[in-house]
């Protein structure tokens, strides 16, 4: 029998039971739709994490004090003070794979403008910090090496702080505010960056020369962090190794001693977060895949019912000249049409629901071609796989018994 006739016969048979065909299809529709939607949501969140981290500077390397033993007691890294100017000098001298370097100290406190005040964080850094963190100025100018040398009382201000202490929209550049007891002149306004992927407000900040924060506010010689930029993304690992060795030498650590600092890169963060969301994608896909299998079992079930119900029809077809193969192909074609039609509707539904999720919940989504092609292929295979056994049962019926079946 020709393919066109086969399709026509199968379509006619399905038409006779439209609702049943549709309900059978529904399993596949939901299966395929959810695979596509889940993969799209998973891929979207993965991409958005990657984008956000890239925005923070993919070449960025962070050095933090690490926990260490102090007379047998482990001390939390953040309260442990190991990073000093000596380290900065050593790093500048011997690490070749970093292009920029900035120490950082932070202080919590109130930013005060007249009667208004706002609790915020002041970061004390070097001018290179802006490049390392990919920060830019919306207005005004950045401070310079000269400001660092003189511990100048100048600062850059983030949008959130402006919103709270300059609520009437006046230009903050040139104004003098107080941070704690110290007056600072605002010389620049940071371009807004919004929230990062951890929910931190990146605009709730004041940035000043690190010497100013160290000497005038904290009275310390230690740094809470060192930020560096690798010359490019690929040399990050080499730079990390160099930094680690330089700091071990600088801290005079013996070979059996642990590092008293941590060197972290954005790559690690990207990899960790990507793998988390990658795992999520796999789990969601597996769940969706299971529903596809259940849809397939639905097809198998209905095809078995259909074969039993239409035993007489099968007997008739055989008596007027249908071969076993013709009957097999007829029922297989019905199963495949159900699964492929379900697949097409499922793909459309998946894409639509993905768009709905993006529009209503604002979740980033990416409908990947591979998930569409894959789930569609799985569909066709599902139809053939689950349709084959009922079809084979039909094709092996004895025409005499099938004709007399009541």
């Amino acid at each position, binding site marked *: 029998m020709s393919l066109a006739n086969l399709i026509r016969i199968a379509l006619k048979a399905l038409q006779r039971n439209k609702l049943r065909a549709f309900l059978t299809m529904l399993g596949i529709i939901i299966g395929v739709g959810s695979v596509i939607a889940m993969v799209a949501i998973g891929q979207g969140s993965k991409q958005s994490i990657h984008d956000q981290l890239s925005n923070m500077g993919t070449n960025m390397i962070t050095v933090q004090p690490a926990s260490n033993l102090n007379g047998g007691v482990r001390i939390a890294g953040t309260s442990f003070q190991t990073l000093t100017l000596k380290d900065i000098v050593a790093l500048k001298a011997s690490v070749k794979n970093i292009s920029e370097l900035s120490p950082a100290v932070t202080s919590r406190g109130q930013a005060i403008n007249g009667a208004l005040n706002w609790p915020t964080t002041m970061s004390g850094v070097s001018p290179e910090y802006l490049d390392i963190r990919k920060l830019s100025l919306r207005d005004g100018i950045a401070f310079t090496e000269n400001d660092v040398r003189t511990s100048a009382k100048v600062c850059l201000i983030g949008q959130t702080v402006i919103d709270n202490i300059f609520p009437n929209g006046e230009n903050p550049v040139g104004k003098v505010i107080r941070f704690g007891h110290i007056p600072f002149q605002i010389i620049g306004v940071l371009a807004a960056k919004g929230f990062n992927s951890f929910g931190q407000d990146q605009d709730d900040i004041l940035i000043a020369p690190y010497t100013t924060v160290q000497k005038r506010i904290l009275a310390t010689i230690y740094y809470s962090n060192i930020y560096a930029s690798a010359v490019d993304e690929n040399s990050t690992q080499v730079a990390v190794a160099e930094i680690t060795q330089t700091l071990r030498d600088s801290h005079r650590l013996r070979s059996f001693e642990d590092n008293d600092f941590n060197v972290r890169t954005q790559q690690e963060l990207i990899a960790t977060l990507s793998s988390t969301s990658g795992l999520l994608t796999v789990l969601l896909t597996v769940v969706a895949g299971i529903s596809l299998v259940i849809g397939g079992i639905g097809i198998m079930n209905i095809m078995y019912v259909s074969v039993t119900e239409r035993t007489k029809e099968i007997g*008739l077809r*055989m008596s007027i000249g249908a071969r076993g*193969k013709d009957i097999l192909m007829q029922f297989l074609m019905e199963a495949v049409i159900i699964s492929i039609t379900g697949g097409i509707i499922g793909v459309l539904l998946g894409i639509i629901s993905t768009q709905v999720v993006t529009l209503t919940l604002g979740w980033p989504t990416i409908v990947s071609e591979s998930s569409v092609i894959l789930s569609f292929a799985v569909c066709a295979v599902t139809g053939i796989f689950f349709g084959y056994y009922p079809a084979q049962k039909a094709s092996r019926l004895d025409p005499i018994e099938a004709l007399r079946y009541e």
Partner: protein
Amino acid sequence: MSKGKKILEIKDLKRDFIMGSETVHALRGISFDVDAGEFVTIMGSSGSGKTTLLNILGCLDKPSIGNYFLDGVDVKQLSRDELAMLRNHKIGFVFQSYNLLPRTTALENVELPLLYNKEIGSAERRERAVHALEAVKLADRFDHTPSQLSGGQQQRVAIARALVNEPVMILADEATGNLDSRTSYEIMALMQELNTTQGKTIVFVTHEPDIAMFSSRTIQLRDGMVQKDSRNENIRKAKEVLAGLPVTDDY
């Protein structure tokens, strides 16, 4: 189709069924020939081997022993698929319960056998189905589904389906069994017309003696053997019987 050409040749046909430890001899050695253009009724009571013989004649089953030639083809040598092809090309079945596909129009039902014939395209298929339905006087019922047709009309669609592949033999299995007597005569009149005007060979299996009167020859089976094989010299015309029926007989 020249008269005298042998359509069926059956020689010492036996068919045994093994039921558990017992062997049932359904057919115990049957021999007869059917020539082209004959209208044969095969009669017999239940258990006479009628149905078994019909299955073999219809190429749905094969004999255990003995030979069956249909239009010169030795059926015994054929595989399952070849039997299907033979049924498609050479036999037109008419069943007691019509066996039309539900929710499918008369025309599509008649087209069905041709779908399994690769040599026939869709245009020819449609043309031949229309022709067959016209031959059974249902030219105005092409688009009716079985549920919209009376029993007699359904059986006529089934006869059109049996005619459409131009078989060498129409094989009817109790084709009037589900119909009232008036409609039965109408169907027999149609059969007689196909036999006389178109020269169709008809083998009609029945247990009703008055149906046999319309045929040219009657083969009586009993216990798996041919009990009597007689030519009917006095063939009744179904049309005349129909005309003789009182109008009130039609409920």
